[in-house]
């Protein structure tokens, strides 16, 4: 029998089942999309971390698709016993593949919820797909960066370690009380509840520049406290220095004039004028 006739016969016998199976699978895909969106909104409203949201929604999606596929296969004629065995085999193969191959597949150096800087862009990772990574900038922009671009560029993950060091340098006037300034900075760092005790904060004189004595401070805080703590320290130190009469130096030039030099300059100017007149 020609192949087209075989196909015709098969479709006459099983065409309805095929259509029903496809409808079931399509329905499962649509329902899974809706449920995933609903779950994402509810989880984000409950302030669940982005990483957990991604994990939960991905699991929901896979479960719905799998259930849809298995029901579709049953409609096509596969027995439940066979379906169970296929499912079990797929799970086992998946586990084996993950365990054996995971060390050879480099993971992305960040996950959903991390703050990263990549390709010159800074933001929070919202999701990582096979093709691109979605980043949300702090001004509200959403950026889609191809994974191929990310893997070729250097990536700074600010959440890879839980703590971060605050570096601040203050340039003080040469005539200011250096030891008092250092003591103030050290006390302020020791008092602040967000500054970690280990590693201990440090204050040291970094250098003597043209305009100022540069004092640098290092202090560690949690990632989540970093920005606010840094800003607070700058504000508090500036105001405290003002109270104590310690000046923050700015670039300036001291010009010293001597009487002899001024007289000579005036004389030579007079000679130039008489030469030009004659």
């Amino acid at each position: 029998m020609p192949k087209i006739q075989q196909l015709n016969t098969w479709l006459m016998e099983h065409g309805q089942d095929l259509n029903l199976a496809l409808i079931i699978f399509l329905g499962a895909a649509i329902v899974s999309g809706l449920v995933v969106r609903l779950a994402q909104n509810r989880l984000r409203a409950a302030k669940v971390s982005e990483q957990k949201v991604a994990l939960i929604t991905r699991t929901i999606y896979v479960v719905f698709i799998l259930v849809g596929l298995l029901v579709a296969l049953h409609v096509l004629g596969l027995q439940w016993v066979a379906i169970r065995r296929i499912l079990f085999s797929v799970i086992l193969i998946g586990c084996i593949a993950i365990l054996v191959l995971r060390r050879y597949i480099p993971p992305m150096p960040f996950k959903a919820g991390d703050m990263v800087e990549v390709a010159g862009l800074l933001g929070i990772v919202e999701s990582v797909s096979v093709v691109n990574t979605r980043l949300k900038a702090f001004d509200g922009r959403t950026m889609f960066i191809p994974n191929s671009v990310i893997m070729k560029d250097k990536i700074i993950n600010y959440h890879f370690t839980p703590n971060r060091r605050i570096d601040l340098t203050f340039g003080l006037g040469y005539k200011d009380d250096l030891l008092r300034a250092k003591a103030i900075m050290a006390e302020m760092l020791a008092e602040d509840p967000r500054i970690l005790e280990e590693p201990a904060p440090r204050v040291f004189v970094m250098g003597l520049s043209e305009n100022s004595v540069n004092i640098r401070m290092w202090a560690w805080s949690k990632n989540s406290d970093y920005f606010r703590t840094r800003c607070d320290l700058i504000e508090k130190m500036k105001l405290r220095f003002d109270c104590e009469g310690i000046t923050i130096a700015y670039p300036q030039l001291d010009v010293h004039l001597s009487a002899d030099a001024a007289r000579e300059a005036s004389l030579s100017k007079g000679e130039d004028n008489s030469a030009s007149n004659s």
Partner: protein
Amino acid sequence: MKLKEAANIIKSGWVRKRKGFRIRFEKRVEGGWEEDFFPDKKEPPIKSEVAAWEYARRFALSTRLERPGEESRATVNIFVVDDLGCAVPFYGTNALKVLNPKA
């Protein structure tokens, strides 16, 4: 004495690390004024001293005695305290500061 021992003594004694800040104020009740705090003592304190003083400033502005028609929610003697309840000098002047003062 070993250096490590001395370092531990210094660490625990030279400056007390505060654990957070609260805004202390007095609110009107029958017969007088009653002390209260926010955040409440059962809640975690504010970690930023700058934020605490800003809260205190805005709270003082929104509950000052002179606001007409809102005398019932007026609050007085507002200042920032640390986790032990000690008044914290205002960081801008390094001196104690009381907002909406009332004798």
